[in-house]
Every structure is written in structure tokens, then in C-alpha cells.
């Protein structure tokens, strides 16, 4: 190939691929390497793997975690998909409220939700149990949060927003033509939805399934609060043992390694399942989307949405509000127990909260922008086969998610404390860590978005003599813009509540709210914990709404101007 005929954009692709390798491969490779290193001497050894898998207890924990992950992802489908369909395609009332509640759910850190759920469904004194006992006169309530089912419920409550957002953006792209075809052939609404509409969203649903599964098995906060008292061994609580004194980070790294292969397996399955069918929904041929009229069923649908969001948002928020405004939360509800002192303390008397609030949102915003930009580019490169070994790149982009943050932090630390990237003590180590950590979410979302765009649109530009970059700027960019705000939020919000990697990487001057929050959670100080949690939730909601207004979208992520 001669230089003159070479598409110059190839250098841009290579540059982006290089960025991906630096951000992901560098810390991960150091982690893999350390799993083969002797802690004291640095010699190459397999002892770490023997130590990590030499006990039945450790293996059992791994099995429990896999069961947990699958159960959580399955519950997320049950929670998220009907809601996404209702909000996207039907005339259900109260869509704004439902969307706001889901946004609130997504913002609430899961360990804050877990504390709230302990108060709601604790077997001895949970509010729900007390209400049940009061109504029925029974001696004990039916709810027990300290079980596998309770654990699945709480984690699913804070993961289903992924399912909702992914599925919804896919549904928004499917035109009614295909549904009309089914209707013409005599299928009813239900049959059309189940056999035509939802199957078309399968790639998006599977992406969300994988994200929910991976998040569930890599979570530490909620298991520490619920699985431990419930006597359920999980991978992350077991992992903690390797950090106990004397810390054996090499064993921890070894213990986390098989997760990489599980992720690879999941992707392979996903590819197998969707490879044979076409899921290109967004073509150049227009198409319109009409709402499905549900009749009386629309109230049933709203009831379902409000029920799920009560579990995930409204009920836990009542608990958080009670504690944040209580002098002593153990005294329960009463007027003389009300105070603003907790909020005043965390905002006024502790200047660190204000600094941490600013850091949280700045780091989250920058990370989200970086991750999204990179993810879109990589997804595009992979789908248009612009470089060889594209498939491998998508594995690389998804890999960081599966390594628990606490282990990943070791890799970040190793990667960013020595030249050429000596970033320790600066905000950049946190920003790059968040970017890497949430790249998979950005990627899963970008992947689904790019997949839905038919290449023929760009081919039209190229046939007319435009270059690849022109096609990107004038065709792909405008088509993606629709989902961009949502995709940004999907990274921004988890970044604002990211804890496990932040806890080892922050220094004085770079604290973030999640670290403050977690500190309070093991100090038994639930009043301050709730007050900070409230600031985090309200601050994020305000920012998100203001941001959406700025980019010209309303609550529902649709354009405020009619199309």
C-alpha cells in the first residue's frame, strides 16, 4: 500500500489503541506479574496460587460469588427490562417520577442502601417486620436481610439501573415498523413485545447482564455489611483475608485472576448468541416510534415501577433522611429528635466535606469524559475492523471491571508511583484509576450504540468521496449524540461513588466523598454517615439535572425541543 492511498486516520486509531493499552494493560500486567511473584524475594513462583486455592473455604467463597452474580443479574432483568419498556414504548403515566427515582437509585452508594436495608428488614427489629407484626399480630416478621436472598435483593436494587438504561437506549432506537409487521400478521401487543421488540434489544440486555454480574461479584461494601453477619463466604470478603496483617497482596492478585477467564467466557458466550443474528436497528431509512397504548394496564405498570423504586430508592431514602436529621437515630421518629446539627457539622465544621464534594464531582466528570471518548473510539475501531485483532481490544476494554477495585488499586499503585508516570499524590492517579475502572461500562454502552448504526450510512459518505473522519464527524457523531448524555452519566455516577480503588490512592488534598462515607460506616456514626450520603445524593442529582438542562435534554433524556 502506498502512502498516498493510506487513510491517514489510521494513525489516530493507533494512538487510541496505545492509550487503551497504557490505561488498562499497564496496571493489569503489573497485577498479573505480581501474582507470580514471591512476596519477600520477588522470585517467580506458583505458591500464591496454591495459597489462594489451597483451601476448600476459599473455593466455596468463589462458588457463592458466582451464584450471587448470576442471581443478581437475573433479578436485574426482572426489575429493569419491564421498566425500560414501559418508559420507552408505552403511555404509562408518571414517567418523569420513575426516571428520577431510578436516577436516585443509581446515585445512592450501595453500601448506604445496605445500611438502610438492615434497618428495614433486619430479622429482629426491621421496620418492615415490625409493620408486618403490627398488622398480623405475628410473633416474628417474614423478612431477613441476612440471607442470600436478602443480599441478592440489595445488590440487584443498585445494579438494575444498568439494565434499565442499556435496554432503554436500545428500545429507543427500534422503529415501530418491525412491530407493525408483527401486528399485521396478527400478533397482539404482548406477543409482539415478547417476540419482536425485546429480542431486538438482546445485545444491550446481555451487556447489562454482564455488567451487573461483574459488579455483583466484585463488590465489597454490601457483602461486608450483609454477607458477613449472614455468615455467607464470598470472594471479596475472602479476599480481605489476604490484606490482613501480614498483607499478602500477591496472593490476593492470584485469587482474582480466574475472574479474568470468567469474563472472557461471558463475552465469548455473548458473541456466540448474537453473532448469527442481525441487530442493526438504526438504518438510514427513517422509521418512527409510536407508543403502545396500555389502557388500564398502564396503572399496573406504574405500580410495578413504583414498587421496584420503593425497594431501591424511596424506602432507603426515608431511613437516610431520618438519620441525617436525627439527634439520635436510635430514638426513631419524633419531633424533638429533629436537628440540623449533623448537616451543619459535616458541611460547616468539617471543611474536608466541602473539598471532598468538589473533588468527587470534578474527578468523576473528567474520568467520565475520558472513558467515554476512549470507549466510543475503541468500539468504532472494533466494529469497523479498522485494525487487526479488534476483538482482542474489546476484551481489554472490558477486563478492568472484573478485578475487584481493592485488588486493581494495587496495580494502579504500581503503575503510577514510578516514572514515567509518577502521579501519586496528584488528582490524576484517581482520575486515571476511575477512567480505567469504569471504561468497561462506557465500552459496553458504546459497543451497543455503535452496533446499532448501520455501516451503510458511513459508506454513503465514503462513496461520495468523504474520508473516514468526515463520516465520523457528520454522520456517526450526530447519531450517537442522542445516547451520549446517558452514557456519560453511566460512568460519571459510579465514579462519584467509587470507593475500593480510591481508598488506597487518595492523599491529603485529594479526598473524595465515598472515602469519607466509608470511614463513617465503620465508626458506628450513622447520623453523620447519612448526612454525608444525603449530600452526595442531592449534589449528584442537582448536577445531573443541571447538566441535562444544559445539553438540552429533559428528565427523560429526550430532546426538550420536539422533533
Amino acid at each position, binding site marked *: 500500500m502506498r502512502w498516498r492511498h493510506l487513510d491517514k486516520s489510521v494513525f489516530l486509531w493507533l494512538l487510541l489503541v496505545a492509550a487503551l493499552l497504557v490505561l488498562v494493560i499497564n496496571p493489569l500486567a503489573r497485577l498479573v506479574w505480581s501474582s507470580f511473584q514471591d512476596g519477600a524475594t520477588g522470585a517467580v513462583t506458583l505458591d500464591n496460587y496454591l495459597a489462594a486455592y489451597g483451601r476448600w*473455604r476459599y473455593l466455596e467463597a468463589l462458588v457463592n460469588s458466582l451464584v450471587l452474580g448470576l442471581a443478581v443479574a437475573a433479578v436485574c432483568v426482572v426489575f429493569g427490562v419491564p421498566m425500560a419498556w414501559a418508559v420507552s414504548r408505552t403511555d404509562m403515566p408518571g414517567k418523569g417520577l420513575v426516571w428520577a427515582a431510578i436516577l436516585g437509585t443509581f446515585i445512592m452508594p450501595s453500601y448506604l442502601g445496605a*445500611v438502610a436495608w*438492615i*434497618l428495614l428488614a*433486619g*430479622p*429482629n*427489629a*426491621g421496620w418492615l417486620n415490625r409493620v408486618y407484626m403490627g398488622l398480623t399480630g405475628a410473633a416474628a416478621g417474614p423478612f431477613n436481610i*441476612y440471607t442470600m436472598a436478602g443480599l441478592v435483593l440489595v445488590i440487584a436494587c443498585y445494579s438494575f439501573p444498568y439494565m434499565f438504561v442499556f435496554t432503554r437506549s436500545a428500545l429507543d432506537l427500534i422503529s415501530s415498523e418491525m412491530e407493525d409487521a408483527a401486528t399485521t400478521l396478527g400478533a397482539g401487543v404482548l406477543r409482539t413485545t415478547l417476540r419482536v421488540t425485546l429480542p431486538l434489544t438482546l445485545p444491550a440486555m446481555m451487556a447489562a447482564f454482564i455488567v451487573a454480574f461483574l459488579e455483583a461479584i466484585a463488590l465489597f461494601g454490601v457483602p*461486608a*455489611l450483609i454477607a*458477613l*453477619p449472614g*455468615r*455467607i*463466604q464470598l470472594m471479596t*470478603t475472602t479476599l*480481605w*483475608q489476604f*490484606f*490482613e*496483617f*501480614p*498483607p499478602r*497482596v500477591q496472593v490476593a492478585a492470584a485469587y482474582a485472576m480466574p475472574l479474568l477467564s470468567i469474563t472472557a467466557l461471558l463475552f465469548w458466550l455473548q458473541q456466540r448468541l448474537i453473532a448469527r443474528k442481525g441487530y442493526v436497528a438504526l438504518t438510514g431509512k427513517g422509521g418512527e416510534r409510536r407508543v403502545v397504548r396500555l389502557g388500564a394496564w398502564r396503572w399496573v405498570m406504574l405500580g410495578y415501577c413504583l414498587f421496584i423504586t420503593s425497594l431501591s430508592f424511596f424506602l432507603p431514602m426515608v431511613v437516610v433522611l431520618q438519620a441525617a436529621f436525627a*439527634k*439520635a*437515630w*436510635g*430514638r426513631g421518629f419524633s419531633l424533638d*429528635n429533629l436537628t440540623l446539627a449533623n448537616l451543619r457539622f459535616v458541611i460547616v465544621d*468539617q471543611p*474536608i466535606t466541602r473539598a471532598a464534594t468538589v473533588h468527587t464531582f470534578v474527578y468523576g466528570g473528567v474520568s467520565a469524559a475520558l472513558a467515554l471518548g476512549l470507549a466510543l473510539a475503541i468500539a468504532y475501531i472494533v466494529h469497523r475492523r479498522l485494525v487487526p485483532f479488534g476483538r482482542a481490544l474489546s476484551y481489554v476494554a472490558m477486563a478492568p471491571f472484573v478485578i475487584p477495585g481493592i485488588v486493581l488499586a*494495587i496495580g494502579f*499503585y*504500581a503503575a503510577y*508511583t*514510578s516514572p514515567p508516570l509518577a502521579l*501519586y*499524590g496528584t488528582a490524576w492517579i484517581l482520575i486515571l484509576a476511575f477512567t480505567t475502572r469504569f471504561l468497561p461500562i462506557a465500552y459496553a454502552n458504546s459497543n451497543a450504540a455503535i452496533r446499532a448504526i448501520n455501516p451503510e450510512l458511513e459508506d454513503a459518505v465514503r462513496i461520495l468521496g468523504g474520508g473516514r473522519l468526515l463520516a465520523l464527524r457528520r454522520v456517526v457523531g450526530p447519531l450517537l449524540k442522542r445516547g451520549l448524555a446517558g452514557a456519560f452519566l453511566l460512568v460519571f455516577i459510579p465514579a462519584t461513588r467509587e470507593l475500593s480503588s480510591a*481508598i*488506597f490512592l*487518595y*492523599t*491529603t*488534598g485529594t479526598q473524595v466523598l465515598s472515602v*469519607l462515607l466509608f*470511614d*463513617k460506616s*465503620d*465508626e*458506628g*456514626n*450513622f*447520623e*453523620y454517615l447519612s448526612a454525608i450520603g444525603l449530600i452526595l445524593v442531592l449534589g449528584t442529582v442537582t448536577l445531573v439535572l443541571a447538566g441535562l438542562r444544559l445539553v438540552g435534554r429533559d428528565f427523560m433524556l429526550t430532546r426538550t425541543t420536539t422533533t
Partner: protein
Amino acid sequence: METSRALIPWTVLALLLACAAPAAAFEGEQALYEAARKEKELTWYTAHYNSESAAAVCNGFEKKYPGIKCNYIRTTAQVAYQRLAQDQKAGLAVASVFSSTDVSHYGRMKQDGWLQPYRPKNLSELIDAFKSFNDHQDMYVATAAGLVLLTYNTSLVEAKDAPKKWTDLLDPKWKGKVSIGHPGFSGYVGTWVVQMRKLYGWDYFKKLELNKPRIGRSINDTVTMLNAKESWVAAGPSATTLESKDKGNPLAVVYPEDGAVLMVSPTGILKNAPAPNAARLFEEYLLSRECNEIMVKMRQDSVHKAVKPLPGARSLAEVKTIRPSYDEVERGIPEVKELFRDTFGI
């Protein structure tokens, strides 16, 4: 408010010190302060106290010694050690002072040569019983103390029915109502478990398991469990429980007849401290009267002879305390973690 008023004389004194050098709180204070001020700031990795108390200590220090900035990074003990270990491995000098609640950290740090010796002049103010916990080579010195006590929710349990000694937790009437922490997560709980084993043998925990205790992470989780009424009685910490009680939560503590378990937590200065003089000055401050007065207001226990606790708590000098030796803790905690996991299955 009271805290800041109490600090006014010290602020004045500090100002005077800066101009005229009057009588110092300890010998050589002025020279040390001068040297420390050139270093401008120090960083303190601490697992002692909660973050509010750590902030109050840093504030007090900055007011007493203007011109030196005090940065604290408050985490749990294992996280603090892990951070320090990462720093040391990467050759980074970040922290100058290190305060952990896990005493086994100090043996290892000493062995690895991470600490530098310093004998504080204020050592004479330390409660005599704690002096035996200091390192013979002055690598670390006890600066914080706390107790593991019997605690309960007063809206569920009357004072007369509350457990009086550790073995009362084994009473079947508390089945499903006892809250404890996990020795794998908390140094306080680890020390408590080692001490219970020393007193009553491992049988104590086999019997406790019959009562199906609710196991949290940190010892402070027991405070949450009691406040939530999920548990009625607990083996809990003195400071956090009393602080929560001060806010009006229905909690109370019992000093067990068979002895409150004493936790002594040392502080050491790092060999690669970027601010060694400020670190020494800070260690002096931790042992000083004014620092301990701040501490007791936050419901932490005083290690200073002359500083008495607020009402509702008893002075460490008056309470019957029990505690395993450093050696027993260092050897015992890894053993009891395993036994604990076998007995309780978590």
C-alpha cells in the same frame, strides 16, 4: 464551642512562644518547634480514634504550633499499614507519623527498619500502667487507649438484667441478640478474642456460637446493631458507644466484673519521615495535657495522668482492666482468626 474556648489560652501561649519564648511545656520545646516550623507540614497516618477526633487533634496541634500544617489520613489499621507498605516499597516518603491500633504492625515495622527512635520528654505525663507498653528502644510509644466493654440498648434491656461479666453473654436468654465484631477486620476485636480465650479457653466461643451472635466487621458495628435494636447486648467499644449515647441514643456501658479489655495503641515516627522534627513535636503533643483534654471531650480515653474523663465514663486508672501482652497479641491474633473462622463459619 467549649473546645475552642479551652484552646484560647494555648493559642495565646503559642503566640507568646513565637515572640518571647516563655516557659516551655517540656524541655527543648522551643528549639524543636523552630526546627519543625522549617518543615512546614507533616502527614499522619492514623487508625486511632474516628475521623472527627483525628481532625480535632490536628486542629489543636496547628493552633498550639502555628506555621506547621497537620495532615491526617484516617483509615482502619489494615488499610493504614497497607498504604505505608506501598509507600515504603515504592520508596516514597509521605507519612512522618504512624498510629495503628494493631500492635503486631509495630514489631514488623521495627524489624523492617521503617521506624526511628525518639523518647518523648512528655513521657513522664503518661499513665504509669501504660509505660510497660512502650518499646525499649523508643521506636514506638503508647499514645491512645480504649476499652472493650459490655454494652446494651437501654430501651430493650433494663440495667438490672444487663450482663455484668463476659460469661453472661453465654446466657441462652440472649440467643440471636448478641452483637460482636470480627477479629479479621478489627484489632480491638482480635485483642478481645485473645483475652477471652486466655480467661475461659476457646470453649467460650463455642458456647457463644450457640447464641448465634451477629458478627459485624469493626467493633463499632456493634453500636449500629444496638441502635437499630437488631441486637440487645454486645461486646463493644467504650468511646464510640459513649459518644453515641451522648447524642441521646439509648445505649449504656457496663464495666465487666472480670475486667474491661484494655487496648493500648502506640505511635511511631518513620525513619524516612519528610518532617522528622514536626513528627517529634507531634508525638509530644499526643502525650500532652491539652491533647488529652480534647480527646476526653470526644469520648476517647485519656492516656495523661491528670486528665479525667467526662461523667458516664470511668478513668482507666480506676477500672479493673485486663489485657494480653504484646507477645500474646502478636502470636494470638493469627491463631484466633483461624479458630474464629472455624467456629463461626465466616
